[in-house]
């Protein structure tokens, strides 16, 4: 990326600060002992490898995959933390998503990008509700989704979610008829910028709004 090639880049040094909170949980236990023993030149090289590897991929890169590419003895989490710090605020920054890290454009640049890049249509309300129900109740059968919504679910809605890769079958429920069970995919996490399913608001938080808006 368009990082100016400052030779003595401060970011090339192993991070002294604690890991950002968001990173701490899903990716690793924060490495308490300082990684600073690593040779700074080696760490700088590791940063270059990490940047190239993550940049080349169109899917999030898991720390384990990153570790395979890094020189031995380099902690992938330290590299990620450092890369996150240096790319923060840049037009293309490193974010944590779907169990890994990926480069993403800054949201405020979207209006300019969408002038050129085609944008898919928004999901209809039914599909969004179905997706939310599957996310919270997974694995869920179609009948269970219909029960919650109090309305029948068209096959086309389910097919659309399947085609976009947001949901996937998760076996069958051992009840008469053995209906398919549905769950969300890593692609779903990616679409909505979630690190893990636990990033979804808790149910209590969903009802916490004191009074539903009158406008509804």
């Amino acid at each position, binding site marked *: 990326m368009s990082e100016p090639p400052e030779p003595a880049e401060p970011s090339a040094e192993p991070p002294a600060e604690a890991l950002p909170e968001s990173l701490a949980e899903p990716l690793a236990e924060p490495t308490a002992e300082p990684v600073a023993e690593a040779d700074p030149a080696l760490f700088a090289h590791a940063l270059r490898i990490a940047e190239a590897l993550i940049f080349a991929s*169109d899917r999030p890169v898991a720390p384990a995959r990153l570790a395979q590419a890094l020189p031995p003895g380099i902690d992938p989490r330290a590299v990620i933390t450092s890369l996150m710090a240096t790319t923060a605020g840049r037009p293309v920054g490193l974010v944590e998503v779907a169990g890994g890290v990926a480069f993403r454009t800054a949201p405020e640049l979207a209006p300019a990008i969408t002038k050129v890049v085609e944008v898919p249509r928004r999901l209809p309300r039914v599909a969004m509700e179905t997706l939310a129900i599957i996310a919270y109740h997974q694995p869920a059968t179609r009948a269970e989704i219909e029960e919650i919504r109090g309305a029948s679910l068209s096959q086309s809605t389910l097919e659309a979610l399947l085609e976009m890769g947001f949901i996937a079958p998760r076996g069958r429920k051992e009840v008469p008829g053995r209906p398919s069970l549905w769950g969300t995919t890593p692609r779903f996490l990616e679409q909505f910028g979630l690190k893990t399913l636990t990033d979804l608001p808790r149910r209590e938080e*969903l009802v916490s709004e004191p009074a539903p808006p009158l406008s509804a």
Partner: protein
Amino acid sequence: MTQPVLHLRLDGFEGPLDLLLDLARAQKVDLEKISIIALVDQFLAVLEQARRVRLELAADWLVMAAWLAWLKSRLLVPPDPAEEVDAEALASALTDRLAELERMRLAAAWLARRDQLGREVFGRGAAEQLRIEDRSGINADLPALLQAYAAARRRALARRPYTPKHRKLWTVQDALARLGRLIGALPDWAVLHRFLPEGLTDPVEQRAALASTLIAALETARGGAIELQQDRAFGPILVRRAAPTEAIPDVRAA
């Protein structure tokens, strides 16, 4: 009854539960504290208006209406300990369903507000191939080699010119000779099958021998040496030596 907000657009609702949730929201209180009875009245009123406009209503609306009417009647009378179903519990189950639907609505709205990939944020448009395929190796092992040999040989052998199977067919001449030889020793009626040569196992050869023997028998019967008898179609064919004394007068000859 006087709900001017609802323009009888039942089509706009995703089923009865959706309308109920909308009505409950209009009570402007926590879903836990809504008045089920007021809710039922409102629901039935909306449905009544809708039926005035058009008679046909989807079954699930009518089922819900009937159930709600029943629920209301139970809620209005003092609880009866003998009653099997507890109306209060049913009402609270309904509230729970409404609350869950509301939560899922909020979850969907929360998701919809997120920056979405391909809309608000973008990933790498043209991923680079990070896999290099090393195709220098060859996937072939001994079993595959042996299978290939066997397959090639079998195919080549199968392609040789076709030589029909040699058959030993029991001719009519054979059958005449055998019949003539055996008939002298025959005391009484015997089944035609007994005159077949022995040791035939091939079904085709058996049938050929049977046909030849039948023709031979017919021929011999015509000569007057034997008699043939068959009681019914496909029944056993019986053979016996013709009695020389009582010459059966040939009707046609007479």
